């Protein structure tokens, strides 16, 4: 007979996880659809009652988002402008119903190439905090999501929080989701950018990430480097070239061709940047 547990503290949860064999259930928005009509035979560790995993707080200047924080809570939270991309992504996750229950850590742990939360968190240099009876460790998000449906989480680890370092909570950000319909749509491609400018209006730091165009969403470091020092205006977009997208490896599927994804990725990165520069009226979402 499968086991079911609904602990109320992280410590109880990790103590159970140490016994092995558990499947973690958070918002269930990835879990139940994957289950389909089959009966559930896994041992279920339901983390929905762990209040400590919910909500957003500050810790030594870092912004810490509890693992079980829902997308709706993120949308409603007061956060610096650097989080606008994350909020925009949150608003595009499925529907209001999905946002009300789906959690941020669930999105990362599910590790879909099209997870909308990943690019927005990559540009915030987010770290994933994992706890087990062996201790606590933090991994940069890029080292946490390893591939399609693969993460660096060990079976006995609980993701407890997503942590954004103070230094990265700066600047303006923007998110662009490209899908084949308006709501409830898995991204064909999406881009998140965060731009910090200096007093002269030049790009001091910038972070750019593209999702659904490779097994794991990727930062475009070369483009970031090439943009630094340029005025944050439409002209800067002129430097964007094919070479900046070398790291992407889009695939053909029912949603779009690889050729299309590559071309669209360039376009939406440009638009997200323009939006973050404030040079165009918000072109948020194309559907």
């Amino acid at each position, binding site marked *: 007979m499968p086991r079911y547990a609904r602990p109320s503290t992280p410590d109880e949860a990790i103590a159970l996880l140490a016994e092995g064999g558990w499947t973690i259930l958070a918002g269930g928005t990835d879990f139940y659809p994957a289950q389909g009509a089959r009966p559930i035979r896994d041992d279920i560790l339901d983390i929905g009652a762990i209040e400590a995993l919910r909500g957003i707080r500050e810790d030594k200047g870092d912004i810490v988002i509890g693992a079980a924080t829902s997308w709706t809570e993120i949308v409603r939270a007061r956060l610096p402008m650097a989080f606008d991309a994350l909020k925009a992504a949150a608003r595009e996750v499925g529907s209001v119903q999905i946002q009300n229950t789906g959690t941020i850590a669930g999105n990362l742990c599910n590790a879909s190439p099209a997870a909308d939360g990943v690019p927005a968190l990559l540009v915030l240099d987010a770290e994933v905090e994992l706890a087990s009876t062996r201790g606590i460790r933090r991994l940069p998000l890029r080292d946490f999501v390893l591939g399609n449906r693969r993460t660096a989480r060990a079976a006995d680890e609980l993701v407890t929080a997503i942590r954004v370092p103070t230094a990265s909570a700066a600047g303006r950000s923007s998110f662009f989701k490209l899908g084949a319909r308006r*709501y*409830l749509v898995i991204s064909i491609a999406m881009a998140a950018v965060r731009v910090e400018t200096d007093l002269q209006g030049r790009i001091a730091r910038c972070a750019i990430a593209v999702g659904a165009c490779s097994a794991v969403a990727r930062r475009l470091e070369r483009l970031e480097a090439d943009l630094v020092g340029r005025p944050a205006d439409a002209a800067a977009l002129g430097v964007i070239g094919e070479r900046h997208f070398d790291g992407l490896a889009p695939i053909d599927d029912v949603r779009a061709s690889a050729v299309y994804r590559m071309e669209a990725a360039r376009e939406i990165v440009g638009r997200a940047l323009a939006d973050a520069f404030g040079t165009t009226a918000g072109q948020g979402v194309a559907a």
Partner: protein
Amino acid sequence: MSFTPVPIAFELNGAPVSVTTSPVARLSSVLRDDLGWTGTKVGCDAGDCGACTVLVDGEPVCACLMSVAQVGSRKITTVEGLANGSLSAVQEAFLRHGAAQCGICTPGFLVAATALLERNPTPCEAEVEDALGGVLCRCTGYRKIVEAVMSAHLPDRYHNQLLPDAGHAVGAALPRLDGRPKVTGEERFGADVRPADALSVAVIRSPHWHASFAFGDLEGYVAAHPGLVAVYTSRDIPGENRFGVIPAYADQPALADGIARFRGEAVAVVAGERQAVEALDIRDFPVIWTELSHALDVASALGAKPVHASRPGNVLVAGVVERGDAEAALAASHMVVTGEIETAYVEHAYIEPEAGFAAMDGDTLVITACTQSPFMDRDDTAKVLGLAPEKVRIVPTATGGGFGSKLDLSVQPLIGLVALKTGRPAALTYSRAESMMSTTKRHPGSMRASIGADADGRITGMVFEGDFNTGAYASWGPTVAVRVPVHASGPYFTPNYRATGRAIHSNGPISGAFRGFGVPQAAVMQETLYDELAVTLGMDRLDFRLVNALRDGQTTVAGQEMESGVGIVACLEALKPVWQRALAEAARINRDDRTVRRGIGVASCWYGCGNTGIPNPSTIRLGITQAGELVLHQGAVDIGQGSNTVITQIAADALGVPLAAIRIEGADTSVTPDAGKTSGSRQTYITGKAAEKSGRALRETILRAANVSQAATLSLEAGAIVVTEGEARRRIELSTLSENAHGYVLMAEESYDPPTVPLGPRGQGKPYAVYGYGAQIVELDVDTRLGTVKLVRITAAHDVGRAINPLLAEGQIEGGIAQGIGMALMEDYVPGRTENLHDYLIPTIGDVPPIDTILVEVPDPEGPFGAKGLGEHVLIPTAPAILNAIRDATGALVTRLPATPSRVLAAIRGRG
């Protein structure tokens, strides 16, 4: 093994409830199955449709994705909790705006809208869309839902509106008569009627395109799973294991016999107690598959081994319509354009998966399930189960959308078999995946055509060839092969014509009936070529269509002389001002070289109502009881399109009584005469005509009994009919009359069958007695760097002959357009890949733009009160008008549907 049940208590609609169940059970199933609150619907069990939306502490969530333990001590509100004595404002608004058609999505919308209106009683359109974006509707096209929510705060001006007086029902824009249970959650759909003691049925299906199979130890399997009762296979089928909607082509086994010809084909059923069946992982079922070679598309199927030995070359049926000499006419034309179009499999995606239960009533098998065609279900189920047709009774539940696919059998023979064998009620609700895998689709079409015109822009001739992938079994393939050539000219005078339509077998999903039977696909071919002709000739695209539009007195490509009632010119004329405004706006917008370009497109439709040149009668019975109750036996299944309302309106006016005097007896093969199937846009016209005839006949009987003239008025009182003519007032005491076998003292039962002439060898005849016409203008913006399309507005002019109920007609138009939008821009059923509503995309509330409807009324002498059919017509022009608008915006024609961003951009870049 399943989870130890735990006691769970929460607050449901203001009252405490407790239940002992698996902690990881989905809240949706606990509400419905354990607690019996079936107002919350399940359309997908995966978060994709929103039908299961409930409020948890006031916030909408999908009950299918929430474990019941997670509810904790929170408060749940379902649709049943919205009315507080009387309907809530938003429930009222849904009724009066016609925002509920079939009603399966309505609970989800109402619940989500209630959460929005709590926070924001006067939301704008964008706020409504954001709040309701998570609920799918396949019937309404969403516009009336948006209107209803936005106006919920307004005083209910209609609340006390009475039903129309005698003689004023036809033409009244009435809310549907059967709407109330749809907004309260009381409506009972196929999955809502399950008796507590019913066995559950699970279906074992082929995971392969084509495979032979052998079963392992079935008895051992049953024995190893306590609670299972039996496994049945083709060997257990008592009758002829072969069904099909067209008897001459019946070829589909209820349970495959040794060979499965498509993925999803049923090979066995497992029956058992509910918990035992729900705990099964059917991947453990003892069956060994041997994969066989398969062909999935027309190109490979044509050369492949036949799917059915009796159909060489995999050609099921080839239809042809030929008039004049098309080749010679093209050769002599001033200009000829040629093109090819490919369309995809399209899934009906009604929000209600097939469901129902079967039970024995004495020696009669009673099947209570959702359907579009009770009598066809009865006859085919009886055949498969070896019963006389009278020994099977079909009781349709409310049907949560059909659009053609619920014409074919689905659950009926399977639950029937279990009930018959075990003597116990047997229930089955398809999962979304099962529904998508195993039921019919719109035929993918591979079409080529050439059309010629003279220097004045008059069509000289057309050649059309279409191959339609009909999948593994016949279903409605023959109908598509015949309907397409009759309609592929569009509603235009085409003196020389040759069109062929072939239905080709493959191992793909079965293609059947889907709103328009192939005509929407063919219209894409013809209407895109019309644009090319017009543009190349330098003519205005609307004028070009007006020049060629069919007129009274002309002869169709099928040799039918159209004496009167041809309404396409009126539709196109009605669109002219919109066309000119839209073109001018587009020119202004596109003046600067912008990334986003405006495009305008137009396309037309015509569509013959009812079967093609073969009989398809409807019968309507009207009876008056001794007590003075007037009963309408209305067998035209209302799958949301509104026949319960429209047929009643017609009957009321024909008889001359107020609408409120009529009680409807719904479709049930044991109490209602056969009104045929709900398909072919036939119910308003054919069943409506039968209702008109019955109404008039009953009126005649009454007037004769009272010995008064036609001018007399009738009224029903308790136990009497009062007939008044001028000063004269006669009372017919009903108690003095004797009851007939049906329990009526006065009764009329009339049938109507359209006067048609079968098609001859060259496809000439009089295939339909009545046609409907329409044309639509699409305004849209194309993002030329992303290939995304944003619809701005659609204007639809449809000639309905006489709008029996303008509100419902508008609802049909908006809903059809939404399906046309899906077909044009996003719907692509890839077998084995998109068997869910996550990957198979249908339009959401944010994808349907404002729709302006112009109801054109060119009366048809044949139709009841001049009415024509409408149901299928409405989606035909949408897809071609969208493609024409994309080409207008970008210069690029997308030739493969759907026109996804990827394909639009490829066409713009010349990679098409």
